[in-house]
């Protein structure tokens, strides 16, 4: 089955400098996880901070462009993996391996129509 693993973090933990040694170390760990997953990983990427986010809102046929994410929340989407693994337990095992800077949550969503 194919699953999207969506990583949510409080982005303020990164501070203003995203190129420090802690972040470099984190990226290296993600590369290691990528290598470990091999062909099970269909896609993965981190996301730039919500400051860089633009939202298109569609309501009653109107399409308007806004600055920032669609909803303010304590934790923001920070990155995602799409994996192809046998079952939910395998997806949970991958999520538990996620390297994190501090705290965060990983939402596991089965892809529609991906049996």
């Amino acid at each position, binding site marked *: 089955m194919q699953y999207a693993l969506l990583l949510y973090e409080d982005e303020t933990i990164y501070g203003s400098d995203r190129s420090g040694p802690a972040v470099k170390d984190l990226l290296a760990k993600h590369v290691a996880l990528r290598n470990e997953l091999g062909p099970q990983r269909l896609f993965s990427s981190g996301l730039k901070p919500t400051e860089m986010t633009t939202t298109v809102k569609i309501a009653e046929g109107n399409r308007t462009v806004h600055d920032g994410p669609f909803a303010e929340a304590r934790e923001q989407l920070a990155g995602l993996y799409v994996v192809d693994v046998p079952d*939910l*337990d395998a*997806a949970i095992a991958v999520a538990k391996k996620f390297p994190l800077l501090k705290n965060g949550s990983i939402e*596991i969503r*089965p892809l529609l129509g991906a049996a």
Partner: protein
Amino acid sequence: MMREALTIAVRTAQPRIVAALAVRFRDLDLAEEAFADACLRAAEVWERDGSPSDSAAWLYRVAERFALQILRARRIRGGLLPDAPDPEPTVEAAMCDDASLIPDDRLRLIFVCCHPAVAAESRAALTLRLICGLSTGEIARAFLVPEPTLAQRLVRAKRKIAEAGIRFEVPEPAAWPERLEAVLSTLEVAYARAHEDAAGTGSHAGFASEMLGLTALLCELLPRDPEVAAFAALVRYAEARRPARVDGEGIMIPLSEQNPALWDRSLIGEADAYLEHAFSIGSAGARGVQAALHGAWCSRLTHDDPPPWPEILKLYDRLLMFRDDPFVRLNRAVAVAEVYGAAMALADIEVLDAARLEGFAPYHAVRADCLRRLSRTKEAIAAYDTALALGSSQAEKLWLQRRRDELR
């Protein structure tokens, strides 16, 4: 007569057959639907030809065939070509039927029902439905929710299992601690609910034996896990006392007033062995102490033996080291009342977090009992009324009502 044979066969065979089909086809709905179809067919055929020598095996064979038919129909709808249909079982085949050949996949199914990805409130209900074979109505009554609500909950849980890709396997050892905790806490909830509900009626004998079987099965699979052994002991102690839990009029008899002569001694013996084993292989944690509490109660042999209140109190003190919450403290207060008197017990109760206990009938019942002993009659009656209004089982209500009426 035939109806009765069918009812009994369905009750006893259902969990095992549904589990075997669910695991084989990895589809809970298909398993339940096929089993229901098999029961309908049984009502027809057994009426006409008499019941088969092994009714469980018959139901399994027919349910399996229905499951394959349903799958075939789905494939035709999906535009694929159908396979040739299976031949009807011959008389000879029915003679050779043997229920011991039905694969026992209940343990796998327990892990499916108790997967942490299933909503906690649905796990116990799903386990009672699929593993213990209780009807939706029975479970709804046990959980004090309307039947449609419970049915909805089951549908959602089954959809989650199917769509999220939960695996129909016992998890690998690395995942045991987390997964086993989910299983044990689910079984605890399921057992507590059914145990409560069974007080007045005794119609859950089948469920109780399922629970004994399930815990034995878990112990067999995990012989070195003290918590599993402790839970197996607890269920046996509690089941052993079932015959003494209500009087002839259906009124609850509190544990301390039950007649030990009515308790099932052989079941208590089994429980003692499980508990001893639990403590010999390691710390059984809160579950170990809880089982020891039940064991202490069951140490009484005759109606004249006094309840071992000092030991009970000591065990509650130990339980607090593992689990300190208002519910444990409330139970402890019952023992405090016996050992040190109602005034001290009431003082202990008054400092508990009332907000968490407000909706819990036993909180008001225990308070009422302390107030009654202190001759604060008016307050006691008010507390009994609150306990009665919150509602618990019928047997317990009758008991509370009698206590309250004695005060007038």
